[in-house]
């Protein structure tokens, strides 16, 4: 055995560890504030004030109102949220030097397109009294608005962050819908395992709660309409759950090969043991009723990590609070964990922070690693009416002290893209 064998996993690949984490959600800025609120069972969901909600079926969200993005547009807020998370993660990791991160950037960002205020601004500049159409907007564009081009190209947010933090190579912006944050981490893990890099900066960010986005989800009947009180709206695994709550946030994780982290004396926050994914071919918004894709996703993650279901102490659920997801997630968990499913703690961070969409997989990975480090499981709040069809230990309403060595975190997306991550404490 070579001297570096301690740095390889059971499949002979470099072990990937986490050495820095940053987070911002509707609960606050930074790991400490978020963890305190999350384990106190506090909700970040509130009435939306960013835009008028008159006439809308859903009027609540987990918007992050304490971070500026003026004038508001989704990529601007997404960029600012990511910036906060990345800055905290790099500071904790103490890696590289200022503006010189020694690895690539993988960032999950919400889909980008020009928004109504910018369309209106362009239209007004050419023909303030109307009528206007896209030819009017094109006439305005011909005068040149490089700033709007740079803001609304898909690669814009990644470009800014890559420049600011000096990540290496071409930054990768990605989307797998609600699994995006987990996919960013998975891509980082794979790059380190291939030996392309010793470190990777992986980010999920979403600041896209504006009227059109809210209305689009509402038209799909995906959102909770339980507007009063807002903090009671997100009810994962409850019998009276009625949809998810749109929310914002960002999380960043610094991934490193364990060998690299140990060599530079970095503090290791946890091990990213494995990632699994499986696409569903059933339907654009629903998963196959037999659950085979999400079951295969969980199994692939465990297999990639080289562990068995018995090795898992806690499940960080996707747990969106839609009737469909929670039922399907139960089916998957029950199939994979068997009789143990009834007593294995599983909780949904989304009961408090809502569904941070593109960011969710990364946000919940940070919370999963904090669960391991702190020995305390965040609760599923608003669990007042248990669903008898979902007999799970959802850690109802109050956080619980527990020794947690290994977590599996699920992210299941629209479009049938599913990713699960297996994370563990640093080996002794």
């Amino acid at each position, binding site marked *: 055995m070579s001297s570096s064998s301690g740095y390889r996993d059971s499949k002979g690949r470099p072990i990937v560890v986490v050495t820095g984490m940053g987070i911002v959600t509707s609960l606050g800025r930074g790991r400490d504030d978020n963890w305190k609120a999350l384990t106190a069972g506090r909700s970040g969901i509130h009435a939306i004030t960013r835009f008028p909600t008159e006439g809308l079926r859903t009027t609540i969200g987990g918007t992050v109102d304490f971070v500026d993005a003026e004038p508001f547009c989704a990529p601007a807020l997404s960029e600012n949220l990511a910036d906060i998370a990345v800055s905290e993660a790099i500071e904790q990791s103490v890696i590289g030097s200022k503006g010189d991160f020694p690895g690539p950037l993988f960032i999950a960002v919400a889909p980008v397109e*020009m928004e109504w205020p910018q369309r209106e601004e362009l239209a007004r500049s050419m023909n303030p009294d109307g009528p206007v159409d896209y030819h009017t907007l094109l006439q305005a*564009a011909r005068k040149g608005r*490089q700033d709007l*081009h740079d803001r609304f190209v898909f690669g814009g947010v990644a470009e800014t962050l890559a420049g600011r933090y000096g990540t290496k190579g071409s930054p990768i912006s*990605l989307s797998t819908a609600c699994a995006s944050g987990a996919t960013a981490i998975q891509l980082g893990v794979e790059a380190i395992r291939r030996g392309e890099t010793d470190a990777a900066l992986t980010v999920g960010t979403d600041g896209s709660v504006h009227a059109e986005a809210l209305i689009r989800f509402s*038209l799909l009947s995906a959102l909770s309409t339980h507007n009063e009180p807002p903090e009671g709206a997100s009810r994962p695994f409850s019998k009276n759950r009625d949809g998810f709550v749109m929310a914002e946030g960002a999380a960043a994780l610094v991934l490193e090969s364990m060998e690299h982290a140990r060599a530079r004396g970095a503090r290791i926050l946890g091990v990213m043991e494995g990632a699994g994914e499986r696409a569903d071919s059933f339907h654009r918004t629903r998963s196959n009723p037999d659950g085979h894709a999400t079951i295969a996703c969980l199994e692939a993650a465990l297999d990639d990590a080289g562990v068995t279901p018995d090795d898992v102490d806690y499940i960080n659920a996707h747990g969106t609070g839609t009737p469909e997801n929670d039922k399907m997630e139960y089916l998957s968990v029950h199939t994979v964990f068997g009789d143990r499913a009834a007593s294995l703690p599983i909780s949904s961070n989304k009961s408090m922070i809502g569904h941070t969409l593109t960011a969710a997989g990364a946000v919940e990975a940070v919370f999963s690693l904090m669960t391991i480090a702190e020995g305390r499981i965040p609760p599923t709040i608003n669990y007042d009416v248990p669903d008898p069809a979902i007999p799970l230990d959802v850690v109802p309403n109050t956080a619980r002290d527990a020794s947690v060595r290994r977590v599996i975190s699920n992210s299941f997306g629209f479009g049938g893209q599913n990713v699960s991550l297996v994370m563990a404490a640093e080996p002794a």
Partner: protein
Amino acid sequence: MSEAPHREVLVTGIGLVSSLGEGLDQHWSALTAEGGPRPVVDTERFAPYPVHPIVELDFNQQIPKRGDQRQMEPWQRIGTYAAGLALDNAGIKDMPAVLERTDMIVAAGGGERDVEVDSAVLTDLLSTNDAGRLLNERLSSDLRPTLFLAQLPNLLAGNISIVHKVTGSSRTFMGEEAAGIDAVRTAHARVASGQSEICLVGGSYNAERLDMLLLFELGRYLWRDDWLPVWDRLARGSGMITGSMGAFLVLESPGHAEARGATAVARLDAVVSDRCTRGPGAAADTARRQLEMMRSRLGAGRTAVFSGATGAEPATSEERSYLTDVLAGDGGMLVRAPASLIGHGLEAQFPALVSLAALTASRGKLYPATDSTGLETGSDESVDQILVNLWGHWRGEGMALVSRAG
């Protein structure tokens, strides 16, 4: 098992659709037509912006369920169609056991808007004093629920999973040209390293859209005159002509291909990507470094360069002088800029260039030059390898090396 890159990567299937046709044979016929290749350009519908429209496709051939077609906007239909062609070409279309473990990386934009609704709402917005309420009312009643799904970038991959049953894995990269470059690079790296045995990678672009023309015109990247080859545009201004296209490749390990008796169209030797901020000379410096990384894979045979020059400035002039330097050093190399013929397809452009490079390598000869400025020379010279070089219109620099298989 180590996952360090250690094996070759074969291209065992290609699905290409553009204004020139569908499939490899139609593209080769168009490129080598009597009297030289001729582009298909629509100068009317989006005037003053010419576009290369997608060839007429019978979508039923690759998307048999009408219900599936209705759930997609054109960019998704084009992409799902091209993905199906690639799976057909690879001979795995009807092999569920293979499709179930086939990985997928899609480079996608999205946001196909309903321009009628947008225009009507915008007109009303100008005359209201309660914009918030108006927007809520109009969007709630005028947006089609399914349009949202047609707008999500990851739903091209979602549709490919649904229609073609590719379910091994599914990632969608976004970010214009760089998304296409990194999709191909990542797929290549995963197969080379053993992380994947077989991977479908590609993208699609619908150029026939006012909303996308708007995005690029904001940076004044568009050509607003009659068609000219990209190099010829520089004497009269600059700008890209966007083109509708779908381009997907099946990348496969030699062992996996051999086990199922597949033959390769070509070999994908290497793919690299990078980012620079496009200061004067920066992209050329990046490309010089990238070419050095390719050097060990350049064979003794004849190599051509497929430039991704878009026609937009300053990148096109800079690339022209970079290529002039390369040609001076490697006297045998010949250049082609396929965007002159198929237009520029953003996320799909790099997969399309690699597809055309693989097609060219498989035929063993080059198509005639389309350039009166003297950079492109020759007509049907034999060629063994093609170096693809793409600089995005704003960001993203990628290079790939494609060789004749075997």
